């Protein structure tokens, strides 16, 4: 009798165990974590699917928490998370289709303010990329404008016009450089708008190749631009805009996207095979001081799926490469500065920006 009772209670406990452990079919942790040292990944989600999300990867526990924003705020991030920056103690997230800026406390993951981006007729102005300087966050809007957010009062300031469908942006020497893609225009654009941050006025437009998509600055005042052309007769290019002279030169390198940290530009590239699958995935390193290629590919490990973003950890110089299949959860690879794989973790759909948190 006694053994039966023991067996029965053991059996019942065994049955109860699944109810007390977090159970997720894909093996991710879904409890609410404490935010310490680690990285935030902004997952764009699928356009028109309301599934932009935030992943938090903790260095100490090596666990990736999916849907951190949903966890902490009881609501989704919105539709198409386009860009994220950390400025001061806050994260600023541009949600493109929902047309809003989320201001999130980087220590707690709780939203401080949700700012809808609307034009004068109350139609969505659709924020794309964010940069910050002098207590302001500069928001590039796909309807052809740039506006500013005061980070103390969290209110929007004045708005200026730039070219058609501006997207990527970068600040260098008190100027904001904005790439005008013209992606939804009858003819694509090929200019970079230069905005003087003291006057918050557009100074000039620099002509580059058709459809400029990514733009970064080095510490020597040079601006680097990746353009995609028209995906047909006009090919894409990798170009440099020289500091001071604003002279545009072509660099003979195939670049899909890149990040600059210190004296190096970390570039990822790939090509499509006949079945529309990504192949020949590489991470190249280009020296921006000596203006020459250091290595055509530093990575030897296999990279799954399709590369979607690249970021560099300012503390460790590690390279983070996000990959996606556009439909399912993506993956983040962490390589050290020599290209050796350190670790990977699962992200949400379309990971497109990594922000580093150190405590």
């Amino acid at each position, binding site marked *: 009798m006694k053994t039966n009772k023991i067996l029965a209670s053991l059996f019942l406990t065994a049955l109860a165990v699944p109810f007390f452990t977090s159970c*997720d*079919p*894909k093996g991710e942790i879904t409890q609410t974590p404490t935010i310490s040292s680690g990285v935030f990944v902004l997952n764009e989600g699928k356009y*028109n*699917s*309301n*599934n932009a999300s935030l992943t938090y990867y903790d260095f100490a526990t090596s666990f990736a928490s999916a*849907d951190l924003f*949903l966890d902490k705020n*009881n*609501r*989704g991030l*919105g*539709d198409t998370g386009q860009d994220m920056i950390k400025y001061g103690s806050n994260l600023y997230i541009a*949600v493109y*289709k*929902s*047309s*809003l800026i989320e201001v999130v406390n980087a220590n707690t993951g709780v939203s401080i303010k*949700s700012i*809808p981006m609307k*034009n004068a*007729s109350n*139609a*969505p*102005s*659709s924020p794309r990329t964010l940069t910050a300087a002098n207590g302001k966050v500069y928001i590039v809007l*796909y*309807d*052809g404008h740039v506006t500013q957010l005061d980070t103390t009062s969290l209110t929007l300031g004045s708005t200026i016009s730039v070219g*058609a*469908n501006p997207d990527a942006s970068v600040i260098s020497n008190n100027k904001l450089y904005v790439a005008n893609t*013209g992606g*939804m*225009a*009858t*003819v*694509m*654009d090929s200019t970079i708008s230069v905005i003087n941050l003291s006057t918050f006025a557009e100074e000039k437009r620099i002509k580059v190749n058709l459809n400029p998509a990514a733009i970064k600055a080095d510490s020597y005042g040079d601006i680097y631009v990746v353009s*995609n052309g*028209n*995906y047909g007769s006009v090919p894409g290019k990798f170009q440099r805009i020289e500091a001071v002279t604003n002279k545009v030169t072509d660099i003979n390198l195939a670049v899909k996207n890149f990040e600059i940290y210190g004296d190096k530009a970390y570039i990822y590239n790939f090509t*499509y095979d006949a*079945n*529309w*699958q*990504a192949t020949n995935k590489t991470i190249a390193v280009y020296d921006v001081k000596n203006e020459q290629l250091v290595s055509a590919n530093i990575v030897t490990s296999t990279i799954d799926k*399709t590369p979607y973003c690249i970021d560099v950890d300012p503390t460790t110089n590690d390279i983070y490469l996000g990959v996606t*299949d*556009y*439909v*399912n959860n993506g993956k983040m690879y962490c390589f050290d500065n020599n290209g050796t794989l350190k670790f990977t973790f699962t992200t949400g759909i379309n990971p497109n920006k990594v922000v580093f948190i150190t405590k």
Partner: protein
Amino acid sequence: MKADSVPRINLHEVVVNGHQLQAGRAPLPLQIISNKELTTLNAENVADIAKHFAGVTVKDYGGIGGLRTVSIRGLGALHTGVSYDGIMMSDVQSGQIDLSRFSIENIAEVTLSNGQPNTLLQPARMFSYSSVLSFSTKIAEYDEKHTISGNISAKAGSFGMINPMINICKNISRKWAVSLSVNGLTANGEYKFLSNLNTLGENMVEKNRINTDVHSIRTEINSTCEFNPFEYINLKVSQNYSERGLPGSDTYYLSYATDRLSDRNYLTQVQYQNRKNCYFQYQFSGKFNNSSMIFTEQSPNYSADIDHTHIDNYAQNEYYLTSVFQFYPTHNFTFSTSVDWWYNNLFSHSNLNFRQDAAPTRHSGLANVVAKYTTNQLTLSANLLYTLTRETNQTGAAPNRDKLSPTVCMSYKPFDDKKLRIRAFYKNIFRLPTFNDLYYHDFGYTNLKPEITNQYNAGMTYFETGIPFLSKFECSVDAYYNQVKEKISIVYGMPFSSVRNIGRVDIKGCDVNLKLSKKLNNSTIRLSANYTLQLAQDYSSVSDTYLDIIPYTPIHSGSGSISCQCGIWECGYNYLFSGKRYSGQNSNSQNILKPYLDHSLFGRLSIKKLSLQVEVLNLTNLNYEIVQYYPMPGRNYRITLSYKF
């Protein structure tokens, strides 16, 4: 000896008790909803009727002007043929027919056939789809005293809907009748719904469905000329114009929608059938169809375009001819052969100049031979369909295609005294890639192969009219295994996605159908129910979602209906239910769409020539969606007043 003056009666064609018995004997599963039953299902259009068939998944995007497409047994909407009065409809651009524009007011019958319709005297095109949904218009009965008959009705309801209709039929002579029907619809389509901001929990926000108005007018003229009971010629001319807002999917934290769609459709079809000869019968038909569509989208993001608007223009034409010949050498054997030819073209133009204009064309030819052997107990049938296509396009056309597709089926009655029949069929058929699949802007891929289906079915039917207590008892159960091979699936990439034949789907399922009716003195009680159990899984060889369930295919689904007619009163209750399904390719918690149960009621009073009907739909005001982020309306009402003359 005096020559026999009594004309020979074609015994094969005498149909007792209408089509219902035919459904019981049919080797290929067949479901019919006709006449009186059509008006008891709280249905407005053919898509609403389709929801009451077993094995059907109707993808309903919600709202009055919303798109509704019909997928049968997990094969996908592009494999469903839609036939109107015996001639196949088509849209070569998208491959889908929007069934919401066919009001049931002047429809006599809607039939769902798995495989193909069972009759042999039909065009080859009826054999060229995995399943066929057919519907036919009402034909006025000849009445000596009243050469003009018809009905006028006005319907009004929620969403600011007003729907006037008129149907007039004139008997020009004993043999010739012409009818005209006009159907107008206007509605603002707006309704409140709850948007759930937390997909893993619940955080509801009330929003308004906007930009969802619809205005349309549909006119149709039918002329039926019966030279004698076995020879007729029918002509149809119809036009349809509609302009509507497209509310789009719900986006969190945003209420903005400006997409508009206007479409115009002209259709002309003629059919001549001759069955005078006992041994040899034939039919010729022709059709011309022209559709044009203008899609506009206004957004601040089109800052560099006129009026901030993006405009897409499409126009397509189809010319179609078919002839079929049927032979009865002995009373057990029937043979039939049919030849079809049609030509499609499409013009597309966008105001975004970097998108090229496209003007693809396609010639399609079909040749079909069928043989059928029938006895009292056994029916055996087989057909072989030959398809050829030839296409052209300025920037490169799809390769020429030639394919052979067989079907075999049988039906057997094991016991003489019991009306039980067992049946089985195998069908191999394919669907051609649509013009969107092949040529759409930067997305299409001209080297796409056709998508192939194999269907295996075994089942039994029991159709009885002479049971004590019940006037009619019909029951059928079918178990099936379907495969979709070379499935055309989207392959994602940046900046453009494309399509390739990389998918494969395996479907195992079972459809159960039950219909009962009872007549008592002055009243009739009808009851029908169906249930489908279906497992549709991804069997693609290179896939992260191997064995996951295909999006939008619930494991459990079904519907039911009970109605009672008593003298001048009629009332009824209907329900539709669907178990949980997944909105994405991964069968995980993020993609689950909750199960739903939609109830509706109607009541009707008919006094002499007037009738008044009141309907309540979604009785429990359930907030649900069939397609993710396209909310269905809550409780809503319709009232219809009609006058029959």
